[in-house]
């Protein structure tokens, strides 16, 4: 019964993973075994450490904002009368449903230095236009903004489902016990949602950390590699720079970092699962 599944996993997961491990130990021409040379080379490069830092900052900032915005919007939708709720839910999901490569193109136009809507508004308002994707700070801000825009609806829908599963009577009991709305949020809603918050944050961290399309389309890593994350830099080094072994080594670095995130969060979930 499980054989086809095992075959698929071996073919689509295990083989590429092992192959990239193998690749990472070859030289640029892929004809000689070089051991850990590719890794030691990476450690000596400033760009590598910049990519590590940028990937972490990008993923953590984006996930925090996605979670916060998703949480707030979920509360807003939860309190919309049932009649209008479907409409709101549908509309708010749109950013998540459009393929990011396409929606990022639209953002690319919005960020355009000369003709964009943003800069037009700024100039109208009497401000200096901003080189959104040309200045390091703004470019980093832009990739995070678009990632949040794409990803927040996922959090919204997960948190909305979690909110709906909190029994109304707990809030009534809390109201009688003397809790105001903030205390209800702090003592009831958040503890009741903790597992779902932990899981969504973990999954989103993994996906965001490995993000490729948004950064690739919006800045292609620029200006001067400053917005690169692991996946885009691995692509640049491996495919565009024709050094597949070095690209493979870069992409392999995502694994230990993600594994540490996963261990911490999953351990917390199983611990509380056992308590309950």
């Amino acid at each position: 019964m499980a054989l086809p599944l095992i075959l698929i996993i071996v073919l689509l997961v295990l083989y590429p993973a092992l192959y990239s491990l193998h690749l990472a130990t070859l030289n640029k021409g892929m004809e000689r075994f070089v051991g850990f040379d590719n890794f030691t080379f990476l450690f000596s490069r400033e760009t590598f450490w910049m990519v590590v830092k940028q990937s972490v900052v990008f993923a953590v900032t984006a996930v925090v904002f996605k979670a916060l915005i998703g949480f707030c919007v979920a509360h807003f939708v939860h309190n919309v009368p049932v009649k209008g709720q479907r409409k709101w839910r549908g509309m708010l999901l749109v950013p998540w449903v459009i393929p990011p490569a396409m929606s990022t193109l639209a953002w690319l136009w919005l960020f355009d230095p000369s003709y964009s809507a943003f800069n037009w508004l700024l100039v109208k308002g009497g401000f200096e236009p901003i080189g959104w994707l040309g200045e390091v700070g703004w470019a980093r801000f832009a990739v995070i903004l678009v990632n949040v825009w794409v990803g927040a609806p996922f959090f919204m829908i997960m948190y909305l489902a979690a909110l709906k599963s909190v029994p109304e009577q707990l809030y009534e009991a809390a109201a009688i016990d003397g809790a105001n709305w903030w205390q209800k949020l702090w003592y009831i809603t958040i503890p009741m949602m903790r597992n779902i918050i932990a899981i969504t944050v973990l999954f989103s961290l993994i996906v965001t950390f490995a993000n490729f399309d948004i950064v690739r389309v919006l800045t292609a890593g620029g200006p001067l590699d400053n917005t690169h994350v692991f996946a885009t830099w691995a692509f640049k080094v491996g495919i565009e720079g024709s050094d597949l072994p070095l690209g493979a080594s870069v992409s392999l670095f995502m694994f230990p970092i993600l594994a540490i995130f996963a261990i911490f969060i999953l351990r917390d979930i199983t611990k509380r699962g056992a308590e309950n």
Partner: protein
Amino acid sequence: MAKVILRKVVKNYDDTPAVRGIDLEIADEEFVVLVGPSGCGKSTTLRMIAGLEDITAGDILIGEEVVNDVPPKDRDIAMVFQNYALYPHMTVYENMSFGLRLKKAPKAEIARRVENAARILDISELLERKPKQLSGGQRQRVAMGRAIVRDPKVFLFDEPLSNLDAKLRVQMRTEIKKVHQKVRTTTVYVTHDQVEAMTLADRVVVMNGGLIEQVGTPNDLYHFPATRFVAGFIGSPAMNFIPCKLEAAAGGLRVKLSEAIAFPVPANRVERYKAHLGAGKLLFGIRPEHLIEQRPHAEPDQHPFEVPLEVTEPMGMETLVHFLVEGTEVCGRVNPNAGALAGKPMKLVADLANMHLIDEASGRVL
């Protein structure tokens, strides 16, 4: 410790009336049970007292204060919910102390009150557990503990026993009564179970269709129901209602149930019923326990009759017998040794001292 007063309280959901103007005065330390079928407005009434529902019209007073616009947290009440509503992520101790912790009561005071309530309810060993690790009955106790700890003016119970199995329900019923005797707080208790209502209440409020049908002590409701609804709702098996004719007879009145069965009206009721001679349709109401087997020595006002039995149901301490009177099914309760047999005729007596005469159109007991 406080009175609760409801004045002309109305609740509409959009255009659907749920409570249609009720007046009720609950004395300090009194245990009042609201009882009625689902949808009669009893839970809505309780939730309005709690402040969980707005009032469409009327006034609710707790103590001497009108609380119409006072939020639940400032009403100084405690409520026990049907499915307990314990906070699943908190221990029993945290659950019980939640209200006091929100009020920033001193730690020592909180501990003292929680331990005291735990002792009353016999849950001292459970304080460190989470609700999931408790049985249904234990959760119920914790929910009550959470109410007791707050030492509120009023306890509100919303069908607290309906999630328990039959045996536990009887046990917890006694427990609730004991707690009330110890804590003596004004209590409003909602249930659809008339046995619960009868056993717990100082006074029972029977509700139907958003209105109060009758308020009275359990015995009052049982022996002197004001309406057909109350007569039918209180008591199990339910009271029999048989269409009848009121006729003048030698020296008094008689109720005629069929060509074969007619009972003389007890002398002390003749004056009361006289005015209804020849009035609209009437029902003869009698409880099953007042239709018994014929015994050697008849009491006054017991009148014999004979009917073929349709079904007999032996219950152990008694046997229920079912028979037809002019197409209406009637239930009686006889001694298990009286020899009741389905399909065979049996001599029964009706205890007319406990009969009721009901005006079918208005539903009033005459």
